[in-house]
């Protein structure tokens, strides 16, 4: 595959000329990443984890490494993507941190490139320690190109009162690839609410390959929201990896509206006992969009509970893939795990694949899963019509409910309202 060589070549050029200011440990991390990527190459559909998703458009495409943002938008131009005027905010354009559009919060909400130097020990302690690169070529490639992204650190017992906005904008002017790398660390009993958004100012094709590591200390709680509304011709590949301490809480919400091809690997490790996880996702697709969510919940400790809900709404010729792997390790007794994946097919050409994968190695656990794929329920349709609601409105209402069920679990009101708006717009179209 020519493209693998092209990416490796581009890495070599960059590493030898331009990435030079990095500390030695970071250079080592990158070298490990590129070596792993070179060895793995792009995945193919013969691999179990990629059975339903072909990355050929990415592997055979040509994406340049951007040298600088194609243009820097005004604050006015990015306002449609901002949930709040105030509060900590980091904005990246074509992968580059835009200080003029951002409001960092000291060195706790900062660009990663900045803190790599200022808080080297802290970054080094966590960066690359959670998102695996073994068998994961995209994560490996991102690691090779680690340079910038969002850094959020919440000290012990601290609470960032306002939601932190992390906004990754593509100009869409050129077919570039970006590798945003985000690191979120909550120390013990800290709290934060974070919204990570991917969007585009233009309509051109590009490729985002992001990795986010989220480390949640004992007794800490994070409400993490991820919004993928990339341009219709974009490619989006992402890894989100969390690691939870004892008695911690993670509410991880993810919505996918955009991109021609999207793949999101979500990994969660419940490493301390008494942890709680809500993994809540929505994909709303149309046209020829393809979105693949590959989730793994790893119950590595006892007395943890996880609730996973993914709903897909698939119109026209779109395709949704959901894999929900749940691992209950030996000793993870009293695990309580529940998974549901419901797919609504709005057209006969739409398609959904749903595969639960339960691996249970402890005996005193409660694990349930269920998945559905199908059109709107005719009984529900008649029920609404029998109340005076016109058939077309009834269809829209039922479809909206499918999405609203997921959005309703989000605590950030402004975000919920914004997503609600996007969903209604899409359904009205």
């Amino acid at each position: 595959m020519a493209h693998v060589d092209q990416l490796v070549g581009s890495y070599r050029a960059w590493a030898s000329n331009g990435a030079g200011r990095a500390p030695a440990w970071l250079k080592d991390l990158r070298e490990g990443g590129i070596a792993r990527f070179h060895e793995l190459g792009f995945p193919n559909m013969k691999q179990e984890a990629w059975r339903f998703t072909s990355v050929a458009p990415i592997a055979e495409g040509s994406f340049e490494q951007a040298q600088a943002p194609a243009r820097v938008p005004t604050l006015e131009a990015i306002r449609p993507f901002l949930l709040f005027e105030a509060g900590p905010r980091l904005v990246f354009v074509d992968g580059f941190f835009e200080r003029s559009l951002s409001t960092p919060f000291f060195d706790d909400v900062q660009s990663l490139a900045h803190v790599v130097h200022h808080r080297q020990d802290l970054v080094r302690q966590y960066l690359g320690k959670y998102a695996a690169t073994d068998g994961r070529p995209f994560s490996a490639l991102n690691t090779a190109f680690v340079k910038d992204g969002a850094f959020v650190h919440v000290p012990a017992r601290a609470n960032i009162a306002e939601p932190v906005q992390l906004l990754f904008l593509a100009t869409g002017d050129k077919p570039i690839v970006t590798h945003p790398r985000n690191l979120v660390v909550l120390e013990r009993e800290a709290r934060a609410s974070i919204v990570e958004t991917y969007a585009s100012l233009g309509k051109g094709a590009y490729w985002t390959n992001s990795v986010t590591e989220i480390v949640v200390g004992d007794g800490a709680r994070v409400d993490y929201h991820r919004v993928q509304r990339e341009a219709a011709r974009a490619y989006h590949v992402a890894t989100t990896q969390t690691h939870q301490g004892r008695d911690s809480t993670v509410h991880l919400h993810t919505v996918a509206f955009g991109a021609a091809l999207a793949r999101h690997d979500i990994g969660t490790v419940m490493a301390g006992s008494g942890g709680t996880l809500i993994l809540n996702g929505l994909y709303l697709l149309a046209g020829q969009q393809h979105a693949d969510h590959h989730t793994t919940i790893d119950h590595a400790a006892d007395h943890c509970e996880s609730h996973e809900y993914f709903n897909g709404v698939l119109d026209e010729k779109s395709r949704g893939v959901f894999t929900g792997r749940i691992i209950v390790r030996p000793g993870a007794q009293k695990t309580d795990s529940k998974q549901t994946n419901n797919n609504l097919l709005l057209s006969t050409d739409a398609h959904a694949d749903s595969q639960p994968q339960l691996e249970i190695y402890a005996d005193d656990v409660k694990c349930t899963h269920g998945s559905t794929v199908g059109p709107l329920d005719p009984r529900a349709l008649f029920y609404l019509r029998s109340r005076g609601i016109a058939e077309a409105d009834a269809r829209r209402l039922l479809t909206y409910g499918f999405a609203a069920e997921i959005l309703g679990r989000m605590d950030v009101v402004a975000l919920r309202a914004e997503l609600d708006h996007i969903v209604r717009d899409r359904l009205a179209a």
Partner: protein
Amino acid sequence: MAKQKALLEVKQLRVAVAGNEILKGVDLTIADGEVHAIMGPNGSGKSTLAQVLAGHPAYEVRAGSVKYDGKDLFDMDPEERARDGVFLAFQYPVEIRGITNSYFLRSALNAIRKHRGEPELDPIDFLQVLEQKLKAIGWDDSMMNRPVNEGFSGGEKKRNEILQLAVLEPRLAILDETDSGLDIDALKTVAHAVNQLRGPKRSFLIVTHYQRLLNHITPDVVHVLADGRIVKSGGPELAQELEAKGYDWLRDAAMVS
């Protein structure tokens, strides 16, 4: 008593589902403000009658006619019937994920108001209407912010149907086995609400297998449906008689007729 105008006139109605004829010539006339009960053994066609009047697409009308307020009911879509005042309280209310009861009910009420040429209600105005209705039937708003029927107990689902009835203010309310699955307290609560909703401009068709609901809601007329036909009609005392004697004697009567 002056003879009131017929709201519903069912004539020689024959209805099939999946190719099987269930209703084999039903005649039924309900005047404004009257409460009729339809009783009958399982499989007699009671629910079929309720569903076909509401416009369920699975039921095939083979013969006969139904006039509602002078109009041909079978010319109307289910939503048109509802907007014109036909309401079916379902035997098995459907769960609607992601839509709160209050949003659902407001959407329905606004569809009906629009049809009547009345302005649509915003969420705040709707809450006021809702509060007033709840007060009238003596209920609280605990079910309003939950998704429609999702995770509701059997009793809550039936109560929710009656709440919708109260808010949508139909002219013809059809209650399909509303008493099934209710304990005695829930039954009384539902019956009390229905009694509050009775009025000269509202007719009821109460479909039930047992007489016990009729202990609390006194009907004007009781019909017995057996094998797809109404085989006997009478006053409230007929319900008592059925409770005492069962249905078999009437079924036999239907066979010989």
